[in-house]
């Protein structure tokens, strides 16, 4: 187990390093001089050259990479080209929107998917199962940003239950802020829940064929208890794996969905930065999100050991 975790940890770290090199190099080949962008078209050659020196842009590539990477490790990403404030400040401001959104969506999708998976697996082959999986099949094919548009139309335009977009900020109180996050979270969660429900059902069906399930039933354990205590627990590893993978999708989805609802999160920040060619913001946010995905996948690997005691002792 330790060796396994160590290996995962190494792969995670290596991925981060490779990711940082790729991101750094990608922005190197981009046309356009950041110093020129900051100073505008009217600046003289000498002014631009001076700023290039100040920004360290005239240093050799490897020195600049190491500087940048060292900055990343201490959460010092540098200054935004367009806002002239530290990138970390921009990120912090937006993080308090995107992070709650992703967490609510993840929680929601799990809360919907696991019971549906249990329901379908317990009735496999029967009408309830077929209907649930048909709905899931549609959910898997649903583009989340389109689903978001439909939700806006029904719940914000027709029924006027929630705002169609925008974010009042947490300063306006928890309830108005949460209300603004409801539709985006549902739009993100339901397509994810469809995938998760299918995986949960498949894993449960696999487990339900095992001898120990028959034993539990034979000794008179009620089906409900068998499902929750034996079947679900044993089916949890593939479910956790998919949840880890989904987190990456969720983050990318958050970026897209924030644009549907005009939420001032990391996704909006990235797109504004893209249109303004504020590449240092783009690279910082992408690096942060890649790091988040890697950390979550490590946590998933760790959680295997929590779920399955056999993995803790295996050599």
């Amino acid at each position: 187990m330790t060796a396994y975790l160590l290996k995962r940890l190494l792969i995670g770290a290596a991925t981060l390093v490779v990711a940082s090199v790729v991101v750094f190099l990608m922005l190197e080949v981009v046309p356009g001089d950041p110093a020129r962008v900051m100073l505008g078209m009217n600046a003289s050659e000498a002014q631009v050259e001076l700023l290039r020196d100040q920004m360290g842009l005239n240093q050799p590539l490897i020195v600049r990479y190491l500087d940048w990477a060292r900055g990343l490790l201490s959460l010092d990403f540098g200054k935004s080209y367009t806002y002239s404030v530290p990138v970390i400040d921009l990120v912090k401001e937006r993080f308090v929107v995107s992070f709650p959104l992703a967490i609510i969506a993840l929680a929601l999708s799990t809360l919907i998917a696991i019971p549906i998976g249990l329901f379908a697996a317990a009735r496999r082959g029967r009408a309830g199962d077929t209907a649930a999986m048909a709905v899931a099949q549609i959910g898997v094919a649903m583009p989340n940003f389109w689903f978001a548009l439909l939700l806006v139309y029904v719940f914000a335009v027709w029924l006027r239950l929630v705002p169609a977009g925008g974010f009042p900020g947490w300063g306006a109180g928890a309830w108005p802020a949460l209300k603004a996050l409801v539709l985006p979270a549902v739009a993100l969660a339901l397509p994810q829940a469809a995938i998760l429900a299918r995986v949960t059902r498949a894993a449960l069906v696999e487990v339900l064929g095992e001898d120990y399930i028959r034993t539990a039933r034979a000794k008179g354990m009620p089906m409900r208890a068998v499902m929750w205590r034996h079947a679900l627990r044993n089916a949890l590893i593939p479910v956790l794996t998919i949840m880890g993978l989904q987190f990456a999708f969720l983050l990318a989805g958050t970026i897209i969905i924030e644009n549907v609802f005009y939420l001032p999160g990391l996704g909006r920040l990235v797109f504004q930065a893209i249109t303004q060619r504020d590449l240092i913001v783009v690279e910082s946010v992408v690096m942060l999100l890649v790091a988040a995905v890697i950390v979550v996948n490590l946590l998933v690997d760790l959680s295997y050991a929590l779920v399955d005691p056999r993995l803790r002792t295996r050599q």
Partner: protein
Amino acid sequence: MSGTVPGNPSTLGALAGRALTNRSFIIGLFITLVVAAMALVSFFWTPFDVTRLIVADRMQPPSSAHWFGTDHFGRDVLSMIMIGARNSIAVALVAVGIGMGVGVPLGCWAAARGGWIDEALMRFNDLIFAFPALLSAIMITAVFGPSAINAIIAIGIFNIPVFARVARAGALSIWPREYILAARAAGKGKARITVEHIIPNIANLLLVQGTIQFALGILAEAALSYVGLGTQPPMPSWGRMLFDAQTVMIVAPWLALFPGCAILLTVLGLNLLGDGISDIFDPRARRRP
């Protein structure tokens, strides 16, 4: 013919018999063919010319002349969806081609050689796999400029490790078989065995993965176009149409309805087709009691 299934799972007759009785396969194939036909027809004919903007006809609700209505430039939505289908299919298909073209040889090579080459290739695979694909695609298109070509490359790159993994796993399960041993005894080299025996025997796995990645590619292209990083106007694309529809949704909800349905149906069709194909080739995997 479905009675012959368990005895002889891979004769052509048995496969065809299972295909004809498999609901997922039939529905999936039907939807996929309809979308493909729509895309093909759009090369020769669309109900209206989408390059002509007729302002007098703008934002017409669905009618007998314009089945799906018209947009804010007076363009026919059905015609745009037909051309959008062409576009979505082209992007997703080339992206799958890139993934298969690079991933399958890599996976087969890793399986055939084993040892450190296998280890190195698979670790490299893990590296790309750990990257959040859509996020990276957003970054690639943002940096190298929004265009359909860059969207294809960005989506294609992340298909490579998927196909490499499937090909390697499939190939590893074929190599110990007796007919491979026989081929080796006959003096065939590893490369020739891979081409003549391994790849035909993992073709069904690759086909299933191909339909899945095709569907994901269509979703990714739509998402990228929606945020303005994929196909560029005036070329119609489903994602872009949804973006344009968003601002006028209150007065013209049909503009947001039909392109979304097109994406949903296409992806649904491909997923059903993939499920069907994997059922047909491996009936025992699904039908376990």
